């Protein structure tokens, strides 16, 4: 599978995992009733891609206005294989987008950043859309 695209809903984010071009994207809000069911297939696809493909550059853009703790855990699960791939030499960039002034999301980004030693983690403040 070279691309996963899921439209955003009220409770789940827009997903656009374009493995072929190495661009992954999550946007919106994330508090699905069953976070494991929503993120499980994404995690599997990501692991499959990382295991099978040449170590080309990957950029993962996360711009969430709200996510619940289950989603936070799921994000962590997505980040881990990326960090592992970065440790093995693949250029990985995480772009953590937050609305300018949204301290909660910025803070959460800082918390996630602490987990990355090899991947590049960018905190990006976005102006009002």
């Amino acid at each position: 599978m070279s691309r996963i695209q899921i439209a955003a809903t009220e409770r789940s984010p827009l997903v656009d995992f374009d493995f072929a071009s190495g661009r992954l994207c999550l946007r919106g809000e994330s508090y699905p009733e069953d976070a494991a069911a929503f993120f499980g297939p994404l995690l599997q696809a990501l692991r499959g891609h990382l295991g099978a493909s040449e170590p080309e550059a990957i950029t993962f853009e996360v711009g969430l206005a709200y996510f619940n703790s289950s989603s936070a855990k799921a994000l962590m699960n997505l980040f881990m294989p990326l960090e592992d791939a970065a440790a093995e030499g693949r250029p990985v960039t995480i772009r953590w987008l937050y609305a300018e002034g949204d301290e909660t999301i910025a803070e959460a980004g800082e918390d996630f950043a602490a987990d990355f030693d090899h991947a590049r983690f960018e905190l990006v403040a976005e102006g009002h859309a």
Partner: protein
Amino acid sequence: MSGAETTLVAIRQDDAPTGAGPGSEPLVAGLGFEEVAEPAAPRRGGSLRGAGPMRREDLRAAAPFAEAAETDRIMKPGALRGAARGRDLDSLTRTLFLRIYPVIAIVVLLTQAGIAWVNYADQLRLYTERANLLAALTASAIDRPGWERAAGTFGPQLQALARDPAFRYAALKDGQGRIVGTAGETPRGKPWDLVQVSAALESAGSPGTLALVLSAEELRDNAGSQALLALGTSVVLMLAFVATLHLNLRRHVVAPVQRLLVAMRKVEHKHWTTVDLGGAYRPSNEIDAISQAFNSMVEGLRSGDEAKQLLQALERAHAELETANRQVIESIGYARRIQASVLPDPAALTPAGVDLAVLWEPLHLVGGDYYWLEEIDGLSVIVVADCTGHGVPGAFLTLIVATALDRLLHERGLRSPAAILAGLDAMVRTQLRQDGRGAESDDGLDCGICVWDPGHRSLRFAGAGLSLTAIRDGAVARVRGSRRGLGYPRTGREAPPEADSFVPVEPGTTFYLMTDGVTDQMGEPAPGQRPRLLGQRGVTERLAARAGEPLAEQVAGLERDLAAYRGGQPRRDDMTLVAFRLG
């Protein structure tokens, strides 16, 4: 006139824009005579009524519906039902015939009689003139002085008259009225069969009269045969009229109207049948117009009926959903009573001198937020936990946490917040079987624990994913716990266990333990802006603004503030806040 006819005429008068006038005749006159396919039912009998009783059977065969009882219930007073059987349609033919034909027959008879009479009178006049001429010619041929004695002269003349085929009798009389000579036989018979004329012989000295009688029988015979011819014409005309009327009514009135009636009967039983106009639709044809109006009416009824059925199905589904939802809500309401009874009394620490207020509001009646208050061995223990998920799954986890906490506090006698967190972490992981490979559960909890020792005035805090907030004189301080929560399958990257934090307790300080559901309030965005979380700072600002209020009022006020911030946005998570002041 029967019901069906009346109906037809009434429709015509009301709806047809170019009505010729009331009555049956204009209806026929106004109908188009284009070809219409014969109905499938075979034609029976030749007479006007011949097809009637049989066609009723035909119609039943064409529309095999449930009989009388049901129909009677649906259709009253039954005009349509009777009409649909064809009886009244045949009487339409008969009525038209009885009303039109006598007029035509009388007119034809009178016309023929008039013509015969004129002919007769004309020929009679011609006959008379011919007789006069013959008499005059013969008289002048005979008229010689002394003619009465010259039998050799007038004899052949009289005989010559007999050559006329209509000749009957001639008599020659002298001046004294004596018959001098005759020809033919003295006529017997009725005077109107005879033409009698006379001519005078006026020679000087020998006056006389020639009387001539011709037969008019031929004229009478002519008139008689003409009358017979008129009668025959009337009969032929009648037959032709009957045949034409019957054929045309069948084709252009009865057949299409019967198709319409059969369709109407089907529609009565909700068989949505339209009338096939066969591409021969003409707006000027009233029956075509009625059929088309009927078709649109059937389409309207059909879609209305379908909409009604869909609506009913929807209402049934809605009722079922409502029942199911009510059962679920009742069940969860019951679960809420159980969960609430597991929670401690908010006044549990009042005897220990701890002023405390609680906000506990699950998103869906029950939730994953949990708090515990207990005084043990003179120590006040305050625990706030936020398990993953909310609703029923979250509530299950809180029961695991409650059990584990109870064992840690009472069986193992732990009093250090950090030690309790470590114990919770291990017990939850064991309970959820997260210590093996391929664990089913990826759940855990955030937790913050405070232990207040009033004797030493020491407040110890440890948190996992949960912070302690202190507000004093408008200044906000935050003691952050470790970033990671408790439980969850191990990833090999866990931070080393945290140690207890000793928090200074200044008079006038209010402490808050809150779950992220309190800070994660999504506000109603301004137009063109993205929705924004209230966040830690938003909450503490609002708490600081109410610093002077009693704790219960402060918590209630905060809840109102949060609702105001959300506006139309729904809450995202369970929320729990424990506020306390240490005496």
